[in-house]
């Protein structure tokens, strides 16, 4: 499968990617908005005129450009990491940083991918690397280089080499998919005639928990990606849903209906056992999410008359209400640093992604589509990916937590929904 990446006019230089990208698009990214500050970076074509080298340079340009933190300049030059950059013309082009590199095929079929990042003003090397890369991972090498550049220049970890999970529905089939963060390189570990919802990555990124309706009812499975082995970890009478990993990866908080109404229980993520009940309300309790330190569980409950987000100790106990700004606040997700709560809020009959500082603060609406669902934080906490609808089709978007930049990930075939942003690669 081949894909196509384009951007909106706000980042026109990325249109360069369009020229070399193959046709038969399946997924594409559109970026709108700009960051508060943008660092101008010039990224040369990588040496050797191979498709591999060009693909890598395009991945780096696309990654850094779509982050909103950079203004990408294409110098229309091929510069390897061993050449001395032409600092004068780089300065004249407005670049503060420059990247040159190469990709050369080794005797065993792998590639030696090299790059060097320069500070144009100081005329010095900031960092550089050699990545020995199998042919199938050339794009990944580009994402890793983009991560290294992003971290060197912003001081934060990049998420370009992370993966996302999402569900597609097409021609009556439901697929669980894993892709690079930009929607490329899709693989489908599960394909079913029945719905699949609520995928959730284990903290180490090796397993996914999800809800499958293949047994004509919701059952929670844990699926090991490398082996394809999966286990029904919650298949009790009634409905089993909303899996959320504990930070240590050993347990799952789930919603079960053993006593009629949906309530939150803790189960083992690795073996069948007796679920431990965490909530005892006469209302709906669902959508658990652990705090970053594992001490608390946030969840959705309508115990107060309308669905709102509550917090309780991870072992159960008194719950305190967290959201107040609207009569419908659901789907809590906690940022990786534990400081922010993202959720879905209903305002005047429409549904938006909102964010709130847990230390206290307003509930800020970040999106404007009106049909948003299923928020998911990037592992660096900078982005929230979510599902929405436009043009009669479900697709994914990501919004920066400051609300300034949006990326749309759309498919030319079928609906895309239920995004779950995976952890940093080990």
């Amino acid at each position, binding site marked *: 499968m081949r894909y196509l990446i384009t951007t909106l006019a706000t980042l026109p230089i990325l249109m360069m990617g369009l020229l070399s990208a193959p046709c038969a698009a399946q997924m594409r990214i559109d970026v709108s908005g700009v960051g508060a500050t943008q660092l101008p970076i010039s990224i040369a074509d990588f040496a050797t005129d191979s498709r591999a080298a060009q693909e890598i340079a395009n991945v780096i340009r696309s990654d850094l450009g779509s982050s909103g933190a950079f203004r990408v300049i294409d110098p229309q030059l091929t510069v390897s990491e061993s050449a001395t950059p032409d600092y004068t013309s780089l300065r004249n082009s407005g670049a503060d940083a420059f990247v040159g590199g190469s990709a050369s095929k080794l005797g065993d079929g792998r590639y030696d991918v090299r790059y060097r990042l320069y500070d144009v003003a100081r005329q010095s090397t900031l960092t550089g690397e050699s990545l020995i890369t199998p042919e199938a991972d050339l794009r990944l090498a580009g994402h890793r280089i983009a991560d290294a550049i992003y971290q060197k220049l912003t001081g934060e970890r990049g998420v370009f080499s992370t993966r996302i999970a999402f569900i597609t529905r097409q021609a009556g089939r439901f697929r669980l998919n894993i892709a690079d963060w930009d929607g490329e390189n899709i693989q489908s570990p599960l394909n079913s005639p029945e719905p699949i919802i609520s995928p959730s990555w284990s903290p180490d990124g090796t397993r996914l928990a999800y809800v499958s309706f293949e047994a*004509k009812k*919701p059952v929670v499975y844990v699926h090991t990606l490398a082996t394809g082995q999966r286990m029904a970890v919650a298949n009790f009478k009634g409905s089993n849903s909303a899996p959320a990993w504990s930070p240590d990866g050993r347990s799952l908080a789930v919603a079960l209906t053993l006593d009629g109404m949906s309530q939150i229980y803790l189960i083992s993520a690795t073996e069948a056992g007796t679920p431990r009940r965490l909530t005892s309300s006469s209302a709906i*309790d669902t959508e658990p999410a652990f705090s970053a330190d594992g001490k608390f569980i946030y969840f959705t409950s309508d115990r107060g008359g309308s669905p709102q987000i509550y917090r309780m100790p991870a072992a159960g106990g008194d719950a305190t209400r967290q959201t107040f700004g609207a009569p419908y606040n659901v789907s809590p997700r906690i940022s990786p640093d534990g400081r922010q709560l993202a959720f*879905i809020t209903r305002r005047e009959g429409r549904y938006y992604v909102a964010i709130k500082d847990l230390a206290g603060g307003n509930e800020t609406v970040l999106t404007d589509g009106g049909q948003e669902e299923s928020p998911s934080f990037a592992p660096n906490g900078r982005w929230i990916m979510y599902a929405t609808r436009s043009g009669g089709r479900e697709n994914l978007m990501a919004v920066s937590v400051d609300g300034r930049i949006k990326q749309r990930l759309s498919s030319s075939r079928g609906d895309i929904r239920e995004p779950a942003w995976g952890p940093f690669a080990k």
Partner: protein
Amino acid sequence: MNKRLIYLIAATAAALSIAACSSSVKLDDPAPIEDRSNMPGDGSAAAGAGGASTNPAGSSRPITPITIDTKDPLKDPNSPLAKRSIYFDFDSFAIKDEYRSTLEAHAKYLTANRAKKAVIQGNTDERGSREYNLALGQKRAEAVRRALVALGVTESQLEAVSLGEEKARSGSDDAAQAENRRADLVYQ
């Protein structure tokens, strides 16, 4: 004539069992229910209804024919059992009066056929969180399950599950939304 007769007997027996169960009989005590469920097949009841021995004008060696009706009432489109869906008002989980006869018919069938099992699938429209909708659909399925248990169906015959919005009829018009606020009885 005889088919009708058997149906009447079965209905009477089922009604008796429901009457018994809708009182304060403990649900985990199946004894009184099972006693009565044997009645439709009871030879003495059929003989008594035939009334052969009390008919002075009849033959001294009467023969009362019985036709075995293999027609499954679950497959009869004219049976009240053909109605399997309960619709709810917006944001409501109360079963409306108009579904009382439908639920009574299913309760009769299930109490007379203790080996039969049914799954009750709750549904919702597509608006809002999938997981919260799953919980809302469960609430609808649970309302129907409780109603059937109150009518004498044993707990082990029923499972309430939710499909949430996953099987929702698409469309945002009122008719589609109303169609999705539904619980379905699915016999196993």
